[in-house]
């Protein structure tokens, strides 16, 4: 990275989005924990409609998507973009407006509306359409806020992180309406085809590019060495933007959607695994010499995120294949996969970007020791959650393939659901510890170790 451009960063916005991110992470995970508890003790909500499983489930994933990852990505963007372009972002006022829209017109009202029964039953699109309108506005504002600097700077100077940011924001603006508005007007199987595209585009065109932009940014910023291969970086980037959108239909294998489309999506899913292998090889080679658990926590978070990215992507490629998909689709295996992607890959990458940006905020406290503790809690939680849900999925798939009554699979899953609920405890604690690490410790003027790590 270019030297000393941190003074161009709007630290106020990094600070605000970072704090909002971690607080909302705790709340969103709390919705998940409550929902997980209701599978173990179904009557725990006491018949309250505001605490019923379905509504909590909607708020859980939308909270993770917008409240946690959205805010964490914005915090990282406010740090990365000025450092990469050598220019301030478009406008501090626009930033304050975007912060307000994102948190007070999207996440919080979205949560409240869902709990009051105003929502739409589409995966990764559960906030009601009225909230979706503000998401579209916010995405356009983010494009105005972050992208002009890159275009002024010229394409030949664009680092791979910048490519991912441009791609991520622009294609989110395209794909978001497809998943959130279109199925309201295109019915049934036809709408599901678009829905499937969005389910994968939310991950592939919003979360993955921004998470990768952070990983590609933090590694050289931390190791002070350039990325291993710019060619591999760009190859990975273009393959990703070619293959990811073609994956969507793998969510509906053996459905009535034309088999040719299903098979194409399955092929693309397999190839995507190859692409991720290229990307991860490049990233791991760039980190060589830093060890598995680097002392720099930003690097450690993104490094762990990189490894989890490889595992979840290879898993994704395999489970899209027809034989495995026939068995494990609809089971907890897929829920485990989703947690490995969102709580593993995306959360660790976002946490790395957040830690990196946060440490450069001149007035923000940071407690390295406490943040390291959060790292271990998160890692333990996601490992337990993933292992447990994958095992549950295998058990369920076995019962579904037999002649046993449906309820047998529910009975068999109960111990696994109890353990999944238990896995939520280290995670919730880890999120609180993360927050504590950002509110205690010294300010950068006093610290030296972690900035120059």
């Amino acid at each position, binding site marked *: 990275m270019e030297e000393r451009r941190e003074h161009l960063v709007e630290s106020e916005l990094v600070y605000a989005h970072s704090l909002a991110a971690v607080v909302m992470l705790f709340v969103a995970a709390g919705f998940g924990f409550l929902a997980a508890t209701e599978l173990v003790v179904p009557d725990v909500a006491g018949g309250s409609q505001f605490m019923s499983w379905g509504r909590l489930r909607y708020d859980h994933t939308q909270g993770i998507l917008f409240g946690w990852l959205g805010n964490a990505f914005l915090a990282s963007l406010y740090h990365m973009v000025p450092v990469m372009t050598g220019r301030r972002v478009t406008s501090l006022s626009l930033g304050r407006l975007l912060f307000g829209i994102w948190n007070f017109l999207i996440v919080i009202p979205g949560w409240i509306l869902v709990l009051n029964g105003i929502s739409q039953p589409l995966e990764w699109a559960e906030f009601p359409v009225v909230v979706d309108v503000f998401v579209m506005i916010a995405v356009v504002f983010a494009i105005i806020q972050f992208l002009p600097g890159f275009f002024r700077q010229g394409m030949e100077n664009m680092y791979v992180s910048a490519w991912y940011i441009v791609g991520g924001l622009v294609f989110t603006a*395209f794909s978001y309406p497809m998943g959130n508005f279109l199925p309201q007007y295109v019915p049934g199987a036809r709408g599901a085809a678009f829905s499937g595209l969005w389910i994968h585009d939310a991950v592939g065109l919003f979360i993955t590019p921004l998470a990768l932009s952070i990983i590609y940014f933090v590694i050289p910023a931390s190791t002070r060495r350039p990325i291993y291969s710019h060619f591999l970086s760009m190859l990975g980037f273009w393959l990703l933007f070619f293959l990811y959108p073609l994956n969507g239909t793998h969510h509906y294998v053996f459905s009535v959607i034309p088999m040719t489309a299903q098979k194409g999506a399955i092929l693309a899913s397999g190839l995507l695994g190859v692409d991720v292998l290229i990307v991860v090889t490049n990233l791991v080679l760039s980190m060589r010499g830093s060890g598995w658990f680097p002392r720099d926590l930003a690097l450690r978070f993104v490094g762990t995120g990189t490894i989890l990215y490889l595992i979840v992507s290879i898993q994704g490629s395999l489970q899209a294949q027809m034989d495995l998909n026939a068995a494990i689709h609809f089971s907890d295996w897929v829920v485990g996969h989703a947690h490995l992607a969102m709580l593993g890959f995306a959360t660790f990458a976002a946490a790395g970007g957040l830690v990196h940006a946060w440490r450069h905020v001149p007035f923000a406290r940071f407690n390295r020791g406490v943040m390291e503790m959060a790292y271990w809690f998160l890692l333990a939680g996601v490992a337990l959650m993933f292992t447990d849900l994958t095992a549950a999925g295998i058990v369920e798939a076995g019962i579904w393939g037999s002649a046993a009554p449906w309820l047998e699979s529910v009975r068999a899953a109960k111990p696994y659901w109890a353990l999944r609920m238990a896995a939520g405890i280290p995670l919730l604690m880890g999120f609180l510890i993360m927050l504590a690490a950002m509110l205690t410790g010294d300010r950068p003027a006093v610290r030296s170790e972690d900035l120059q790590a």
Partner: protein
Amino acid sequence: MTGQRMAFLVASVGGIGFFAMSVVVLGVWPGRELDGETRRMAPEHALPFTASELRGRDVYSREGCAYCHTQQVRWLERDVKRFGKPTLAWETRFDFPHLWGTRRIGPDLQREGVVRSDDWQLAHLFAPRTVVPDSVMPDFPWLFEGAADRPSQEAKDLLAYLKALGKARELAGAEGEAKVNMADMEGMGDFHSGPLNASAAAARRATAHPAIPEGTADKRALEIYAHNCAGCHGAKGEGDGPAAKALAPHPANLAGHEYTPDRIAQTLWNGVAGAAMPAWRDLPVADLSALIAVVRKLETPSAEPAPPQQIVDLGKQVYDANCSQCHGENGSGDGPAGKEISMLPANFTTGRPGVAESLRVLREGIEGTPMGPWNRRLSEAELSAVAYYVRSFYRQAR
């Protein structure tokens, strides 16, 4: 600068092209194919949702039902065996937005409409564990006015929607199935489904069932009963489980009846059409055997002394005049008037009520069936006589 502009242009066109391609290849083109399939395979007359069904669909959407129940039977043997015919494109054409779902904690609901009775659905929505003790489904008390048999309009709408699931396909019948051209369904398996599990309605009047030997009422058997039956029939089989009040007709008082093993096997296998009793043919045969033994053990037949001849004569006289039209001349539930009513009249040759149970039914009638109270039309002596008389049909040849 021109080189840079070119690069920018190429990158933009390339990137947007990739995205556009995905939308065309996986969204627009499949949509056209599905439209074609819908035109070729849909029945002549559309069957859109009614206003009530649409409101119910909104409730289903808002409560996240689709996040535990799919509405998509895949073209896989394992799906078809459990849930019935695979979902066709035309069946989903009124779904704005679709409710396919990607997770099954509970079973698929694509064919739910014909599977369960109304009272079962309402009792289950109000408090799922009263009817299915091991269920983890949330209860939805805010759709009711305090009790399962007092549904609010929202619960009625949701019930209407649930009953609409798969209805169009059912009504399309053999003619509709004939339109399914497997050549159109490239690469899909051609699976046929038998009767749906739990489906009593579809098994109306069905009495065929495989031979199920009577097992032993051991500890395991009692557990099977507790996990599957006690919610409705009660822990002691007195028909007073937590769900009983909400069901009309009330669950059978197993303790107040003697049943032949074959009758129990038949009922377990086919369910009771017109009542909430589902078919249990998805349970392993060993479990069904065990349940037969448990039901036989629950019986508390009081050794009734044979009534004097004059009582028998009075009972026969009353029975022939008032009961035989439905219950049949020899008590096998096959009277001419019984053929047209929703639930088969009681068959006394395979199930013998105790006198107390018989009198209770004669005095109170059976809610939800045409069996009304008889205490205003018959004298106490007549009631008593016929209560004894119906017991005499048990194990008699038909």
